[in-house]
């Protein structure tokens, strides 16, 4: 076990944080054309999560949690940190209807398409 923590070193500075890109899953619902983005944000309070859609981009920013880290850090693989990640949005994503849920350190974003962009099956009529 390390005697010095990587996040606090010998000073154990609680405020010392670094920003990382969180791990994400992206899935496409092929029937509706909607996207679902699932983001791992461990150690973050719901109030510290911010999702913004502007200028054709979706930005996820999550602040650091308020964990009490006083003491000697013996091992530090799960430091408190802030997260940031950006995605460019397609023009046919309905920005007004993007919804977000946060539970147990996981943020789930649903990105529906505008109605006209949804796939439509064209019926083929017989000529006779």
């Amino acid at each position, binding site marked *: 076990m390390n005697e010095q923590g990587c996040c606090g070193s010998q000073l154990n500075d609680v405020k010392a944080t670094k920003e990382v890109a969180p791990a994400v899953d992206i*899935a496409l619902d092929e029937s509706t054309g909607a996207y679902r983005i699932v983001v791992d944000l*461990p150690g973050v309070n719901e109030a510290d999560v911010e999702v913004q859609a502007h200028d054709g981009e979706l930005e996820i920013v999550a602040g650091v949690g308020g964990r009490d880290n006083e*003491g000697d850090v013996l091992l530090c*693989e799960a430091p408190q940190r802030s*997260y940031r990640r950006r995605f460019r949005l*397609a023009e*046919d994503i309905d920005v007004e209807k993007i919804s977000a849920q946060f539970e*147990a350190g996981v943020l789930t974003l649903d990105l529906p398409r505008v109605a006209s962009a949804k796939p439509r099956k064209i019926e083929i009529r017989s000529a006779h």
Partner: protein
Amino acid sequence: MSYQRLALSELFNDPFFASLGSPARALMHASDRVRLKRSMPVATRRSEIPVSVVRRGDNLAIHCELPGVALDDISVTVEGERVEIVARRVSKQEGRLLRSERWCGERRRTVQLPFAVAADAVQAHYGEGVLTIDLAAAAKQGERKIQINRKQGGEI
């Protein structure tokens, strides 16, 4: 061009991604890719549960990053100077997975502690995707605190 492929090329308009072809890679924004290479979170690269261990005197706190794990799918075993954490996470993703960085399945971790802990005084709580285990040092073997009684009628 199929519907899906057309949709993806529209999702990210950057011409850089249009040349890549792969739908999963095309989902990444240019600045996002650069950032990922520099500072990918530890959790996505390790097959073990990432943990932090903080010591305050005779007490230890172990913080384990386990976002989105149900309480029933976490087990903590304490034995002497060792703590074993086992967690299982089931992927709830539906539809076609275009990008998969989050772990799923079983992850475990054994942490070797600097001293033996009292197994009956272990407390664990889960919140915001982090499991915190509070441990206290066990009394050393053969060590016993002796109670000093006042002698009946004595004049001490």
